[in-house]
């Protein structure tokens, strides 16, 4: 990411917003660059949708400034902004057919010739693979088709920025994957800045140029998907994105960390000597070895077959680790673990320390439950 002023299309400066005395956004600072695919990622209630609605103009911030192309737009109504939105449940106009829904934005403002409208609507429908659906009633379409109409409708006026509010939330898994690819293609084809809101970390990782991780109205981390995954800044980010073992540790000196009563080589530096830190080790970065070759050892308490790998829980000194391995190990087996220096990521302590990272109460069911409740 460059810090030059030139590429910035949207700037949010110290945005605060509360509803009925409840703080929803607590000082959001964010630059969004032209032609980027930016994703706001976070659990429900983290403020991502409110941020999006402030950019769209449906909400005004209590405090702070919104800039578009360098001009302040706090009080500009939504219908004067060069941004368009794909709504969560599509919000297609039920009294209009597919063609008229897409043409809606063209029929406002200056008069266009009907041929011009028709040409642009047809182009747009071709882009979202809905050619031939012009006369269809929008309520007769499947969820995925309605989704495409919503995208075509929002893109017809060539907005500078397209806002997408959990657009794939209502689709089933398979369709969701296909639509992810299509959305990414449309973004690259049109060169429009996409701001995408989701609580699905996989979706965020696979589509975005930049991910903005939010929680409790505060931006936790901004970075590329690999940054976010490999170098989470705190326990919240580490836990929310992917699976993580998060342990209490101490930084002995640069490149030396101590956790689980062992000293490990690592690639991190710049911490005070003896500073208490959080250590992240991703489950797939741990090698299972015989006990005598291991840097750590423990008892396997559960084994789950996941297709490409086994997911095992290992009890090491009372802390339960999750490890993904392709080698079969049996329950109650005593195994050793080997961790490469580059598999260890050291984070400063934060208010999220000790809240996440232990798999002692882990179960797949709970995981799924929490995903479902997030979808509201």
């Amino acid at each position, binding site marked *: 990411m460059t810090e030059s002023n030139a590429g910035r299309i949207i700037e949010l400066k110290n945005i605060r917003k509360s509803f009925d005395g409840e703080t929803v956004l607590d000082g959001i600072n964010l630059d969004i660059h032209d032609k980027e695919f930016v994703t706001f990622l976070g659990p429900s209630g983290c403020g991502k949708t409110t941020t999006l609605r402030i950019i769209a103009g449906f909400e005004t911030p209590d405090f702070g400034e919104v800039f578009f192309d360098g001009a302040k737009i706090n009080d500009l109504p939504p219908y004067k902004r060069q941004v368009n939105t794909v709504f969560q449940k599509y919000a297609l106009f039920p009294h209009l057919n597919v063609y008229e829904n897409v043409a809606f934005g063209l029929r*406002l403002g200056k008069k266009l010739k009907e041929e011009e409208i028709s040409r642009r609507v047809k182009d747009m429908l071709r882009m979202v693979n809905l050619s031939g659906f012009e006369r269809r*009633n929008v309520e007769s379409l499947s969820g995925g088709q309605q989704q495409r109409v919503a995208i075509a409708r929002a893109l017809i006026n060539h907005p500078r920025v397209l806002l997408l509010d959990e657009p794939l939330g209502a689709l089933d898994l398979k369709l969701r994957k296909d639509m992810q690819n299509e959305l990414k293609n449309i973004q690259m084809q049109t060169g429009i800045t996409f701001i995408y809101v989701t609580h699905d970390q996989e979706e965020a990782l696979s589509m975005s140029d930049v991910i903005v991780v939010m929680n409790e109205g505060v931006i936790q981390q901004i970075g590329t998907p690999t940054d976010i995954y490999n170098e989470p800044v705190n326990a919240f980010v580490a836990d929310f994105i992917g699976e993580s073992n998060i342990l209490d540790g101490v930084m002995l000196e640069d490149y030396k960390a101590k956790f689980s009563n062992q000293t490990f080589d690592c690639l991190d530096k710049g911490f005070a000597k003896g500073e208490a830190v959080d250590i992240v080790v991703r489950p797939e970065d741990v090698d299972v070895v015989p006990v005598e070759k291991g840097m750590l050892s423990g008892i396997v308490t559960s084994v789950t077959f996941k297709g490409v790998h086994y997911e095992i829980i290992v009890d090491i000194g009372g802390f339960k680790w999750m490890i993904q391995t392709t080698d079969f190990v049996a329950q109650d087996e005593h195994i050793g673990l080997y961790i490469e220096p580059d598999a260890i990521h050291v984070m400063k302590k934060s208010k999220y320390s000790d809240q996440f990272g232990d798999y002692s109460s882990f179960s797949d069911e709970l995981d799924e439950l929490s995903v479902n409740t997030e979808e509201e």
Partner: protein
Amino acid sequence: MKTMSRLYTTLIFVFLYAPIGILVLFSFNVSNSTGVFMGFSLDWYKELFRDSATLAALKNTLILAVTSSVIATVIGTAAAVGIDRMKNQYVKGALISATNIPMMNPDIVTGISMMLLFVFVGGLLKLDNNLSFATLLIAHITFNLPYVILSVLPKIRQLDSQLPEAAMDLGCTPMKAFFKVELPAIMPGVLSGLIMAFTLSLDDFVISYFTIGSGFETLPIRIYSMTKKRVTPDMYALSTLIFIAVLLLLILSNVISAKAEKKPKKK
């Protein structure tokens, strides 16, 4: 069980339609009796179309029904939107309750209460004729309003709150968003409110009876004054024609609503 319920339903319908059948039958009677059928003729229909007072009353009734239902629909639709957007629950609740009073109150009370208002205000203004077409129109709009609001309000509540936002997002001002998106979406409710108001106004006797001025006569009022004496079958002929008209109107409105429902609702 099946035949039992079918028999029962049929019996109820015989009961409901017996007087209608009788009056349709006697509208074709040769003699002027409404008790003994002497033979078939269309004389009473011819008679009806020669009766200028009845035709004038019919015309008045239609004018009244059209104006009152249209005005009530405009005021009522605007009111329903306004009520839906109201933040203050107490004002909202009070207004809805007050709106419903004419629906809950007996017609005769609504009628005399408005009559008292008109008489009192007319007395203050020293008007010779306290009651006129205007008072009748006001009365009809008043009892039509709750029915319009009642049929529009649920449609507004069902409306996806994102629809106006989507319209504004695409470049509509709030006003344009209302007319281009919200109003078409609640149109079925508005139309059924209009039809309901129209038919209620067409049929109203009790409230009109107390609020109508002299020199103006609606059909129900004329029928009332005629049934004070011995009714001749031309009134039956008129009723038969109205019955057919209402039947057609009902079929029409059913076709409209069936068309609206044809859009298969996804979940």
